[in-house]
């Protein structure tokens, strides 16, 4: 941590990556909810020829120029996907695959031209493949933060429209909102958020920074506002951690590090989130299974005691209950659990009876509660 505060470069880089993660995470929520997770992949790959062409035409590798080229190319790629899906039988996944790989191939062709340029500034363009946060300058970070802030501001301003688009597009259209325009606007913001991160994270992996924080945040909440804020936070933390690790770890590209951190967030969220988490779901399932087993033993005990007519308190052995139960295992455990709830009691060693409240509970199970006609009758 001390290194972090002392090292000026590291602080710059971490701030840039953090801002980037926050913007990408927040924007990613809409992409994930609208099932456009893979559009981000296509956009970021499609941006590569834009970067190369911008450099070839202007001869500068100043970030605003390259980002503009990347955004244009990413945008054209997106439009191409939309045009193909709308005007042909080609499904969206194939259209995305074609755009991402063909644009990327074109980008590599252009990069081979770039590499033959005599200008010394050529070095560094290949950092756009996997990202190298260490190449970020202060003015790059200022730009990321500035453009990111504008994106987030627009997100807040058009919150209602974007929410409508994500959850009920048809309703929005009947309300008179120009849904196609809103769609193009939101997608354009996504394009900008993605190309903003290409230098830091790289074209190959930028889409993961868009999807992962949003997918993680989704597990913790059902509210869009909370999800966006949370995804922004998770993305920011992933960005900062990834930048620090990659800047100190000697030659590790930033993109993969950030993506791995974000992937850990996703895994942890899917496992541990309080309501949707797999761990909670497993515990819930086990509890239900235990309850069902205990209920079965309870009703068995009830059925046996019913056969004794007046002598309801006649105890029954575990062995008899095991003989009745389907799987013959866990009967003792179920009995202990029933005892814990006060529904059954062990009269003497291995001999069990129902308590009055246990009998009531058994009637409830067998006859579906006292509301049923004649369900209160006992010992039929």
């Amino acid at each position, binding site marked *: 941590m001390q290194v972090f505060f002392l090292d000026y470069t590291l602080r710059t880089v971490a701030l840039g990556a953090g801002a980037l993660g926050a913007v990408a995470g927040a924007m990613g929520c809409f992409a994930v909810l609208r099932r456009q*997770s893979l559009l981000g*992949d296509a956009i970021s790959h499609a941006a590569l020829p834009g970067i190369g062409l911008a450099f070839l035409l202007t001869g500068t590798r100043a970030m605003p120029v390259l980002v503009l080229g990347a955004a244009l190319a990413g945008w054209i790629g997106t439009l191409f996907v939309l045009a193909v899906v709308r005007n*042909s039988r080609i499904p969206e996944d194939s259209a995305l695959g*074609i755009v991402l790989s*063909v644009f990327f*191939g074109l980008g590599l*062709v252009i990069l081979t031209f770039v590499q033959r340029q005599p200008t010394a500034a050529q070095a560094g363009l290949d950092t756009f493949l996997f990202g190298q946060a260490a190449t970020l300058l202060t003015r790059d970070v200022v730009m990321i933060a500035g453009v990111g802030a504008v994106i987030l501001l627009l997100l807040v301003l058009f919150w209602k429209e974007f929410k409508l688009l994500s959850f009920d597009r048809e309703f929005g259209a009947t309300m008179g909102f120009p849904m196609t325009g809103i769609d193009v606007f939101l997608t354009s913001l996504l394009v900008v958020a993605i190309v903003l991160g290409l230098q830091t994270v790289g074209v190959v992996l930028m889409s993961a920074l868009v999807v992962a924080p949003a997918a993680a945040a989704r597990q913790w909440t059902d509210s869009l506002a909370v999800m966006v804020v949370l995804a922004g936070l998770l993305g920011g933390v992933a960005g900062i951690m990834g930048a620090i690790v990659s800047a100190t770890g000697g030659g590790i590209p930033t993109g993969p590090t950030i993506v791995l951190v974000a992937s850990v967030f996703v895994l942890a969220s899917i496992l541990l989130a309080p309501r949707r988490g797999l761990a909670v779901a497993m515990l819930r399932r086990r509890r239900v299974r235990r309850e069902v087993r205990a209920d079965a033993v309870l009703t068995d005990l009830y059925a046996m005691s019913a056969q004794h007519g007046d002598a309801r308190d006649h105890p029954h052995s575990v062995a008899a209950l095991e003989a009745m139960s389907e799987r013959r295992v866990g009967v003792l455990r179920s009995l202990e659990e029933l005892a814990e709830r006060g529904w059954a009691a062990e009269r003497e060693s291995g001999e069990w009876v129902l308590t009055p409240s246990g009998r009531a509970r058994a009637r409830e199970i067998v006859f579906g509660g006292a509301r049923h006609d004649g369900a209160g009758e006992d010992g039929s």
Partner: protein
Amino acid sequence: MTSFDFEIQLLAVVVAVACALPGVFLVLRRMALMSDAISHSILLGIVLAFFWVQDLAHPLLVVGAAATGVLTVALVEALHGTGRVKEDAAIALVFPALFSLAVILIARHAGNVHLDVDAVLLGEIAFAPFDRVAWGGRDLGPKSLWLMGAILGINLLAIVLFYKELKLSTFDAGLSAALGFSPVVLHYGFMGLVSITAVGAFEAVGSILVVALMIAPPAAAWLLTDRLPLMMALSVLMAAGSALAGYWVAHLFDASIAGSMATLTGVVFFLAFLLAPDRGVLAGVRRRARQRTEFARMMLTIHLLNHEGGPRASVENRVVHLQDHLHWSSDFARRVVARAEREGLVVREAGDLLRLTPLGREAARDRMVR
């Protein structure tokens, strides 16, 4: 042309054809982006297998890589199966994580691994002829050509042997399962095929351009035909053509061969998208324009029939009036009338008054009854 040039071209064609064959089914099964996921994550398999055997040419690398490809598919399905993320997000989460792990491993051990990141993305098709197979002192050609040839053979064999099963499960998964073809076995078997192909092609053209070779030619072929065998044949032809053209374009501009091959597959797809005889964009535009003028001529004859012999016929049945009545622009009205005249549906009399010919009258009546 040196023999190296020839070998590179041959390899390019073999790679492209080997990719296009399983690609047909990927496109039809709407699993195109699985190829993206697989082609990225096989890198992890290659790296891990390399750490184990310490030899980049070891056959175990291919096995390890193909296994990672299938593992990727299983992971995507497991993640999707939890119900916590949608399928597209599951793909977008799994392969970047595996790929990142592989890139970091390579970067950490850059010193002793001859696997650099550029090669991962670009492939090394231009260097393929330098790594040769010799047997008994005789040169048998580039090693990667043998590898890709074998993979092409496996693909051909698998598709010939399981053509019926693949076809049925692609077009009617329900019936296929009901007839007793295990969807799981077919799916994973097919994904294994895709993985092996991706591993072989990966060395030549890199992980991302594999996707172009697998998806673009079959997608283009799908715009040209409705028949599976024809679609496969067209895919193979277009893939081979793109590979050769890509090689020569790269040669001409001294650019990346793999990148230029991928670009050419995109160009071919774009041409098919625009120009396909039935399903192309241009064909659609032309069809809509034709339907529009046909409909307009029909409206014209019905309009004339309606007012024929009526009190206002001399007003209604003038060319100028069509602009008011049918809301046609004067230009469009003139064109429709000219066309109708040419087809002998109407004749123009003095003062631009239009009169139906017997043929036109019959056509209008016919339309109105229908």
